[in-house]
Each structure stands twice: as C-alpha cells, then as structure tokens.
C-alpha cells in the first residue's frame, strides 16, 4: 500500500503529461487529490513506523548480473517517515498555492505535471533502500528542477539559469557517481544495510590513488567513498563551492522556489549524509570536510543575503545559509539536529517563498524590494504569515526555528574543538540571519511605499488558494517545534558505542546566546531600517569594499566565469572552428567529394549507346572464353 505514496503523484504526472493539452485549466483537479492522498498515506506510514518498526517493500528486481543485484525497493524508517511527511505536506500546499499563482498561464497543465513528477521523484529518493535507486531519483529531481526553473522558457535568463543549475549539479553528480562505483567495488553491494555492514569490516582498507601514475598515496576507502558521495550533496544542497546555481534558480516560478529550492530537493544532500550516517561515522576526515563545508556555506550565504535587493534572492541566499547549518550539524555528528532543522526550515522557508510569491503576484512580478514598502496594510495575511516565517527563521522564542536552531547549535557546541569554532560562526550567522530576515520584512512591508504608481492603487491580497497555504505553513512554522522530533529521530542515528554527549557544559549558555543573537538581529534591523533609515547607505559608503563584495556575491560567479566558463567557451569555439569545421567536416565532405568524383569518372562508361554495351558484353565473353581455353 505504501508503494502508492510515490505512485499517486506519478500517475498524476502521466495523466497530465499525456492529456495535459486537453485538461488544461482543470489540471489541479488531477494533481491535488493525488498528492493529498499521498499525504494521507504518509501519515499512516508515519504512525506505523513510530512504533519503531521499519517497513520494507520490494517493488521489483531491476536487473541481476552476477553478483550485481539491483532492485527497486522502498524502506520506511523514522528518518524516511518524517521526510515523507515534509515532502507531501509542502508539495500538497504548493500544489494548492500553484492554482492561484499560475492561474491562466499557458503552461498550467505542464507545470502541474512537472511538480507531480518532482513529487514522485523526491518521494522515491527518500524511500530508496539502495544507493543506485537514490542516485536515479537524485538525477530525476535534478531534471525536474531544470524543467521547472526553465518553465518560462521564452525568457533567456530562465533558460540560462536552468542550464546553469543542471551543469553545476553535474559537477557534483560526477563525484556521486564515482562514489557509487567505488562503493560497489569495495563493498560489493549498493544496499544501505549491506554497505554499512561491509564498511564496518573494511574500515581500514586503503586505496592507492596514484597507482595509475606510479606514485603512492594511500587513502582510506571509506573516506574516499564518503567524500565522493558528499560531492553530490555539495552540488544538490548548494554548498560552497557549488552554491552558485541556487540563487539563479529563482528565475523559476515562485512555487517551485518554495518546493524544490527551499524545502525538499536542496535538502536531499543533507538527507544523503544523514541516511549514510553509519558510513560517515567511520571516517572522521570526511566528517571534518563536511562540517567545514557546511560552516563556510552558512557564513557565506548569510553575508551575501545581507545586501541583496531581489526579495527572492535574499530568501535564496538564506536557504544556502540554512543548508550550511544542516550540513555542518551532520558533519559534526548531530544528524538528528540537522534533520530537525531541515524539517522546520522546510516549513518556514516554504512559507517565506510563498509569501514572496504573493507579494510578487500582487505587484505584477516586481521583485526588487526597493520598489516595495508599505504593503502590510494592503496585504495583511501575507504580512503576518511572512512575519511568522521570518521569526521562525531568526529563531525567535517559541517558534519552530527557535527549537531547531538551538538544538542544532547546542549539539554542535558539544562536538569537540572544531564544533566550538563552528558554533561561534553559527551564532554570528544567526545574528545575520535575523538581521536580513527583518530587513526584508521592514523594507517590503513597512515604511513609505515605493510602488510603481501604475498599480499602487489596486494592490491587494491574492486569492484564497494562495493565502490558505500561507496560513497552514505559518501554523506549521510554529508547531513543528513541539513534536519532539529530535528524540523521535535519535534511534535512527544511534551508533550504540558512543553516548550522545548532549547537554554538556555551556548548553544553556549557547541557547541563551543563540536566542539573543536572533533578537539582536531583529532589533538591529529595526533600528537601521525603521528608526534611522539613512544608516544603510551610510554603512554602505563606509564599508565600501565589504558592501560591494557582498552585493556581488563575493565575486564567485565572476571567478567561475573567468576561470571556467570563458576558457570553456574559448576552447569550444576553437574546437568548433578548427577541429569541427576543418578536420571532421573536412573528412566527411572529403569522402563525399571523392565518391562524387569517382562517380563522375565511372559515369563516362555509361554512354547510353546500346552498341557500347553490346561491345562490352562481347569483349567480356571473349575474355572469359580465353581464360577458359587457356586454363
């Protein structure tokens, strides 16, 4: 029965994909019930596994060849169950929201079919019980992301962003694939449970990386597998240095930003690390790399978010930063805290994106926050839900973000010296997070209106289909903190050997610090953007280098452009003009010309004069007879 959880969205994808041209504006009648039923089934699955059991469903054997045995199977444990709930909940709400957001768009049915496909792929990804299945759907969600970013394919910027997202993810997935191969060759299986069992036994196995060139550099196999798989996670979860695609992905319709680029797909990397926790636990080196990558991403994302002016980009960089938190927590062994933050983040970040979406719709696709302001009276529902989302993001007491962020920072604080350093960075990031979140709130919703006078008069709250998901998510952004999710998840990650050193010294101090950082950030934003509105410009002038750096995203895009993209284009251009045109086309055309020329020569033989042919026959007969006679 639980196989229906992913299959229902798949069915709706098939129906909409094949018959979308007829269904058109009624597409939601297919897609919404399917995902709603999935959600109901997910709740059942959640209740089932809450007792501690693990559900395994073997769907079918894909291929068997020697010792390679690949099957499609579903496995639901507590980690999967909470992910299922997250995916189906957010997806369902986004489906409903889309009805209003995409109303009257020409690609309405196409859009629904893609998000149904995405929901299916994401569910299969979290349900997978082996690495290959995970990888297949890992790629599938990447494809959906590509299709949906490029939904408005007539816009060149959307096409560019879609291509960028796809190509940057390729870099990470390349590592993922290598990791997959290495896992198969060293552990002999791709099923999670067998990998963990094998990895325990071959924890000391090493691999000489420089063997092909005759050198000698032994690397632990487990570490290598972990690092290669983590490359995939870096790409998918937009970690440094592959974070560049996520902000550009905001070219897609806003419901997509909420579903794929905030709540679910980008968290697949975090999920991967958590899913493979027993493997990562065996490799301290890989864990350190994971933690540091996460920490860097967290700080970098937050610093960039401070100065962006496109509201979706602010939220996008905030997502990058929050993903950094989760990855960092996983890298420090606090998997439960990481996943907990993933869940609460899924709720409040989806809320923020959908809030952005309703602002954007109300303002006729205006995204620059400098052209907003004073919206809070015109759009009260959007405003209040947005404030709740921002409070949760800032870790304001009694919201879900408060619980998860505190839990996360407390867990990381107790994870050794590296953990302490990263926790301090995390606290600073929390300060910045609160600041930019409320900068967004104050600049967009408060203060004088900078709206375009053309439509300033009739800005109003969007349709019910859009406001209801906002309200539901706002409620979720608060109550997900009260379910005791970390305790629920803890058994999944229990290693048995080490006792989790939670609640050590300084725990309360960290909690108070984290909360006060959030409050300080909010207060700072209030002071800077409401009380003394001149300060931001003054600060920007004073710290010009820093401001420009942050505004230009620390020039990462420019650096890639100069070091990778342009040389690539140059080489491609040269190859096209020199190798392609001269060598390859030359060869092909040369063969064609040679054949045409020899044909022209042979054509002379064929005069059309019947007597010439008869002469040929006679001479041929003479030749044959001569040969016969001589031999």
């Amino acid at each position, binding site marked *: 029965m639980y196989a229906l959880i992913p299959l229902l969205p798949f069915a709706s994808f098939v129906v909409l994909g094949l018959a979308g041209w007829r269904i058109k504006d009624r597409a939601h009648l297919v897609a919404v019930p399917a995902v709603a039923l999935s959600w109901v089934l997910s709740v059942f699955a959640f209740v089932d596994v809450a007792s501690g059991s693990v559900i395994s469903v073997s769907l079918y054997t894909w291929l068997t060849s020697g010792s390679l045995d690949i099957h499609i199977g579903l496995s639901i444990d507590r980690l999967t169950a909470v992910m299922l709930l997250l995916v189906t909940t957010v997806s369902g709400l986004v489906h409903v929201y889309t009805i209003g957001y995409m109303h009257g768009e020409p690609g309405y049915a196409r859009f629904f079919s893609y998000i149904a496909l995405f929901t299916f792929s994401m569910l299969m990804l979290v349900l997978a019980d082996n690495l290959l299945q995970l990888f297949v759907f890992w790629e599938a969600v990447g494809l959906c992301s590509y299709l949906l970013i490029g939904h408005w394919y007539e816009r060149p910027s959307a096409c560019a962003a879609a291509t960028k997202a796809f190509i940057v993810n390729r870099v990470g997935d390349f590592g993922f694939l290598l990791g997959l191969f290495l896992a198969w060759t060293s552990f002999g299986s791709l099923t999670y449970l067998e990998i963990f069992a094998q990895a325990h036994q071959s924890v000391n196995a090493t691999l000489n990386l420089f063997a092909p060139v005759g050198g000698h550099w032994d690397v632990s196999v487990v570490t290598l597998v972990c690092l290669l798989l983590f490359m995939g996670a870096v790409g998918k979860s937009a970690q440094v240095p592959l974070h560049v695609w996520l902000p550009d992905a905001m070219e897609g319709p806003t419901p997509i930003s909420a579903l794929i680029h905030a709540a679910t797909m980008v968290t697949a990397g975090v999920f991967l690390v958590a899913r493979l926790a027993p493997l990562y636990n065996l490799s301290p080196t890989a864990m350190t790399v994971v933690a540091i990558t996460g920490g860097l991403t967290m700080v970098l994302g937050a610093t960039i978010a401070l100065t962006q002016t496109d509201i979706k980009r602010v939220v996008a960089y905030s997502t990058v930063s929050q993903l950094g938190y989760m990855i960092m927590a996983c890298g420090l062994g606090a998997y439960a805290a990481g996943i907990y933050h993933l869940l609460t983040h899924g709720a409040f970040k989806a809320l923020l994106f959908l809030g952005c979406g309703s602002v954007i719709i109300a303002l006729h696709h205006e995204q620059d926050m400098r052209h907003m302001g004073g919206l809070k009276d015109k759009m009260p529902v959007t405003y209040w839900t947005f404030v709740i989302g921002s409070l949760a993001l800032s870790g304001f007491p009694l919201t879900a973000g408060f619980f998860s962020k505190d839990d996360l920072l407390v867990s990381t604080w107790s994870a050794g010296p590296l953990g302490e350093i990263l926790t301090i960075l995390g606290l600073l990031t929390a300060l910045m997070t609160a600041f930019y979140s409320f900068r967004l709130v104050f600049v967009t919703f408060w203060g004088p209106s900078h709206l375009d006078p053309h439509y300033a008069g009739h800005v109003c709250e969007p349709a019910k289909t859009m406001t209801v998901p906002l309200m539901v998510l706002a409620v979720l952004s608060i109550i997900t903190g009260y379910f005791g999710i970390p305790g629920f998840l803890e058994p999944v990650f229990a290693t048995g050997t080490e006792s989790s050193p939670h609640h050590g010294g300084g725990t309360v101090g960290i909690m108070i610090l984290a909360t006060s950082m959030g409050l300080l950030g909010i207060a700072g934003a209030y002071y800077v953007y409401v009380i003394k509105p001149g300060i931001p410009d003054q600060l920007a002038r004073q710290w010009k280098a820093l401001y420009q750096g942050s505004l230009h995203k620390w020039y990462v895009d420019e650096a890639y452009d100069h070091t990778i993209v342009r040389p690539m284009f140059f080489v491609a251009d040269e190859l096209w003009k020199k190798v392609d045109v001269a060598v390859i086309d030359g060869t092909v055309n040369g063969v064609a010309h040679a054949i045409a020329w020899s044909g022209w020569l042979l054509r002379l033989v064929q005069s059309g004069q019947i007597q010439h*042919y008869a002469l040929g026959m*006679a001479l041929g007969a003479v030749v044959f007879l001569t040969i016969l006679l001589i031999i």
Partner: protein
Amino acid sequence: MTVPVSYYLALSAVVFLTGLVGVLIRRNIIIILLSVELMLNATNINFVAFSQYLHNVAGQVFVFFALTVAAAEVAVGLAIIIALYRAKSTINVDEFSLLKW
C-alpha cells in the same frame, strides 16, 4: 561421305561473327535486329551439327524451340522499333541514348 563437324562449326563461327559485327557497327536498328537473328541462327547451325554428329535428336528439337522464340522476339523487336520510330522519326541507333543515368 559426310561433312566433318568442324566445317559446320567454322560456318557457324563465321555467321556468328558476321552477326556480332553487324550488331556492333551498324547504325540501322533493323539491320541490328537482323544481325541478332544471324547470331541466333549460327547457334542453330551448331545445334544441328552436333545433333547429327552425336546421333542425338535433342539438338534438333532445341532448334525448333530457338526458332519459335526467335520469331516471337522479332515480332516484339519490330514492335519496339515502330514505337521508337514514332517517337523519334528515326531508326538510327546513335539517336537513342536513353539507357544512361
């Protein structure tokens, strides 16, 4: 006395070569057709000669078949020639070079 078979063969060869040369060098299609008949008859001579030499009547039966087929072939050939003449108002074989690309 009997005529040795080689005489017949020599005659047959001469007639055949006459026909072959006629086919190859003459321009008038009717003459070409006649030359083809010459070649056919050269073979008939061979058949008859060997039939008598080997005391086997099969060769003579074969000749009847060849004559019948030749008659039919001439009828078809002449019909084609008439059709060609109607199309081009000439029976000069140089004028006909349709058999090429």
